[in-house]
């Protein structure tokens, strides 16, 4: 098993943010922000030094918790600091973006990193449909069409036009082509059946985030079965799990840290006004909804969100043991880890990276 460091580039004062998303720009201090990006990139460099084989980037908007609204920009900066790690774009939110632009960014990243790119495609969390005004009920179809267009744009040898349902381009001729031919490794981050099947049918890897191993297990089983049906077997690098981690010298020390958090747990990272959350959810699932009833049941200031929880908490041995479960039960070959937990300083994150690299990573590399 390999380890991947999620380059979140979190704003150092993120623990002071209000509950509800979006975070007002008034909370931004340019001086702290510059420092936060520098520290985030140092963490990526140090992770590489400690034996992490991937650094990943994820598109999120209107908040400093994961401060990479354009993950390609961040990956390009890190590519110049880290010369060995794979750059895993896990990833751009396709419904929010011009797929041709994403294809061009992928082509550039694979070239400037000399073939170290891993492509990943996501739909995005429910709040993010609002960022560029995407209808939540259309995001899934836009994701599928966007992926097809990107893969075509990166492999066609001659200019073409695209007559899509959601995208229409009369001239597509992406330059540069990827270094890795015909395509860089691709991962679809998903849990839903149709997306998992798409990944299997198109030779793509599977990325799953933040869920317990017992929930991931049937998803992985379907993925492996569908891959088998279409005649191929994923490699370990094609099954990725992204999880929250807090590692300490002992299990007790990890628990002690957890108890310093409000309520003794991670709070939801993204909270929305209840009415907005319900309407988004209904639109995403294609359900009818009664807007007036929803609004009446959602007083001002009523926000909702789901805590993702800590997937890995404890000593290096405990964490390695938990990761082995994901490996053995789900076939996970790459563990993508989010270290920047609330309230932790840059120095504390660096200590964790070192502890993980020295004590846990040698164990999981044996899986």
């Amino acid at each position, binding site marked *: 098993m390999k380890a991947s460091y999620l380059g979140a580039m979190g704003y150092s004062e993120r623990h002071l943010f209000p509950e509800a998303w979006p975070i007002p720009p008034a909370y931004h201090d340019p001086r702290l922000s510059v420092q936060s990006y520098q520290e985030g990139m140092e963490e990526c460099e140090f992770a590489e030094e400690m034996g992490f084989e991937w650094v990943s980037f994820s598109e999120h908007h209107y908040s400093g918790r994961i401060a990479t609204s354009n993950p390609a920009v961040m990956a390009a900066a890190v590519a110049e600091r880290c010369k060995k790690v794979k750059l895993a774009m896990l990833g751009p939110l396709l419904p929010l973006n011009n797929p041709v632009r994403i294809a061009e960014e992928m082509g550039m990243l694979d070239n400037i990193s000399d073939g170290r790119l891993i492509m990943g495609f996501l739909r995005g969390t429910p709040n993010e449909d609002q960022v560029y005004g995407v209808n939540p009920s259309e995001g899934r179809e836009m994701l599928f*069409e966007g992926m*097809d*267009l990107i893969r*075509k744009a990166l492999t*066609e*040898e*001659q*200019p*073409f*036009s*695209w*007559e*899509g*349902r959601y*995208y229409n381009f*009369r*001239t597509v001729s992406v330059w540069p082509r990827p270094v890795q031919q015909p395509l860089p490794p691709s991962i679809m981050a998903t849990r839903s059946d149709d997306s998992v099947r798409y990944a299997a049918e198109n030779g793509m890897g599977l990325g799953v985030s933040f869920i317990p191993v017992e929930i991931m297990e049937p998803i992985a089983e379907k993925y492996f079965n569908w891959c088998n049906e279409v005649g191929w077997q994923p490699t370990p690098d094609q099954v990725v799990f992204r999880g929250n981690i807090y590692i300490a010298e002992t299990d007790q020390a990890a628990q002690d840290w957890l108890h310093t958090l409000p309520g003794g747990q991670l709070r939801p990272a993204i909270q929305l006004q209840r009415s907005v959350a319900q309407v988004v959810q209904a639109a995403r699932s294609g359900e009818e909804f009664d807007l007036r009833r929803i609004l009446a049941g959602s007083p001002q200031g009523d926000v909702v969100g789901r805590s993702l929880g800590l997937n890995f908490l404890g000593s290096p041995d405990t964490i390695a043991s938990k990761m082995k479960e994901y490996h053995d039960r789900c076939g996970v070959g790459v563990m993508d880890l989010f270290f920047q937990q609330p309230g932790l300083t840059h120095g504390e994150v660096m200590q964790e990276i070192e502890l993980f690299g020295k004590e846990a990573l040698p164990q999981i590399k044996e899986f």
Partner: protein
Amino acid sequence: MTTNQPNATFKEYPVNANGLALNCREAGAGLPVIFLESLRWGNQSLYDSLARTFHLFILELPSGDTEGIEQVIREAASMLAGNAYNLVGASLGANVALRTVLKAVLDSEPAESLVLLSPTAVRPSNALTELDQRQWTSPLLAYPERHANLAELPGHSELASIFSPGDSDTDLESLLPQVRCPTLAVFGTRDRLVSREAPSTYRGSIPNCHVSLVYDTAHLASAERPEAVASVVTDFIENRETFVVNRHSSVINP
């Protein structure tokens, strides 16, 4: 493309050209468009759209390889549309359209533009002939279950003869550089009757060729997403190579 305009009324009659009788359906007004049809199934929405903009003549092709069909088409097209027309063909009809234009290169080329819908003449695959009777719709339609009139499609062997390139198509790839008129080649992104390289081959070989990929359609793209096919075909015939220039306003509220 959505429209509230009523569909055109087609009149149907035989056309005798070079000793062969072809069935013709005609509707609309405007620039003349000759459409070479190899399968009378699934194209009506496309025809209705085209007839709203153009003077459309649909010529039904005889099945199989017909000796001298190019000359028949040229003669029929001249009788119907005069000395300047736009030539469109689908599948086998696209192959015939291509051969017709190539044959005319030595003379004055009558086609002002050429549109090839899912042509199989170059880099064909064996997808259809390799499939058994139960699977025969899969290379033709990405979503067969969406078509209520599927039973009206001809059977497997007849379709195989309709969609396989003819013997006279074997040398067409080497002749592609001779095509002089603006050309649009349209392919479904899930078309398995041509190889993956076919679109690039047309684009790279014909001097003034554009390739359009119609998302989420198989070989019968115009039956699956007629609005998308009609949109790009109409744009191309009206504007030739300048169809790449977007002239739609982006203003939301003035």
